[in-house]
């Protein structure tokens, strides 16, 4: 709000918001796939992630509309970085989605608008915490700053088995300190969710 709005589509903030919205559209889609390949505790985790990303997506839509922009609609389908067949694939996809979202929100964290910065900071923390919930492993001290993204890119062409246990890396005891969105009820994928590729 410190920068005067320059127009429906012209301001850099709107561009960044649009990019984050597109990323959230993809995240919601991916979580639909993740929910379709999981059950039990993993499915509950997937539903929570689905709801959280959908809530952020709607918030971003509102921001863009308030600024006079036109929020982009989701694509009909999204190409996933690898085929999701087993729960372990779903877990890996969820981690990648969260890492990507952290990167997207870090871009928003540089926006001149302090309100958007705040949203970006809180959401990046939520995404990082969710990623840890899926896969309790911390590597990079700087989530979203690029090294995780490099991992993501490296993960796209190959589907090498990771050394982590393939069954259930979920931490049941992990507190959800920051994620508190509850906006939706069902965790059905909105579009039909082919596995892509």
């Amino acid at each position, binding site marked *: 709000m410190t920068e005067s709005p320059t127009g429906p589509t012209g301001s850099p903030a709107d561009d960044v918001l649009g990019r984050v919205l597109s990323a959230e559209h993809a995240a919601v889609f991916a979580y639909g796939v993740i929910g379709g390949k999981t059950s039990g505790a993993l499915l509950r985790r997937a539903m929570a992630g689905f709801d959280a990303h959908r809530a952020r997506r709607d918030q971003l839509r509102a921001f863009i509309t308030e600024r006079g922009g036109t929020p982009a609609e989701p694509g009909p389908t999204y190409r996933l970085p690898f085929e999701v067949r087993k729960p372990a694939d779903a877990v890996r996809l969820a981690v990648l989605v969260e890492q990507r979202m*952290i990167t997207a*929100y*870090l*871009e928003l*964290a*540089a*926006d*001149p608008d*302090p309100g958007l*910065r*705040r949203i*970006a*900071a*809180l959401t*990046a*923390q*939520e*995404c*990082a*915490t969710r*990623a*840890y*919930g899926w896969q*309790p492993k*911390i590597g*990079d*001290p*700087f*989530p*979203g*700053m690029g090294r995780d993204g490099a991992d993501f890119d490296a993960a796209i062409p190959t589907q090498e088995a990771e050394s982590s246990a393939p069954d259930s890396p979920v*931490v049941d*005891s*992990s*507190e959800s*300190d*920051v994620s508190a969105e509850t906006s939706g009820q069902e965790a059905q994928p909105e579009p039909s969710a082919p596995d892509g590729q």
Partner: protein
Amino acid sequence: MLGSAAAAGLAAAGCSSGPRRPAAPASPDPQAVLLTSLIAGKEQLVSLYGRAAAALPDRAAALEPFRQRHVAHLQALRVLLPAANGTGTFPASPAPPSPPSSSASPAEGRSAVSVQALRDAERRAASARPAQMAAASPALSQLLASIGACEAVHVVALGRVRD
């Protein structure tokens, strides 16, 4: 200060092609003030981990990666600090182990640090990041968002270190 800032703005607007650029102002740069405070906070966290490792030898190995990530944060913050206040060798030198500072209160400095105390400190640090970002430069704001995300994960991950 307002006057000089306005004058600098006018000068920048008026003769942007001029060769004379205003040098870094001698008055305290708000970014440097913010960074100094952020660095002090990180140093305290690093020192807290050192004390926890000393108090909990059987957890020291588990806590060390956490401490190292904070050291990485510390170095990244130091890189952003203008070289105005002393040597410019911050980034090159590895972070000193920073023993418990003598300025800490005796009770703070000597009491054993529990994993729960580390969690609380991490939680406070992560919660403070959004407000700190409001006045930060874009690059620092981004860095703080990432550091805060790491700290938020630490809060959860420390739950697995606790017995």
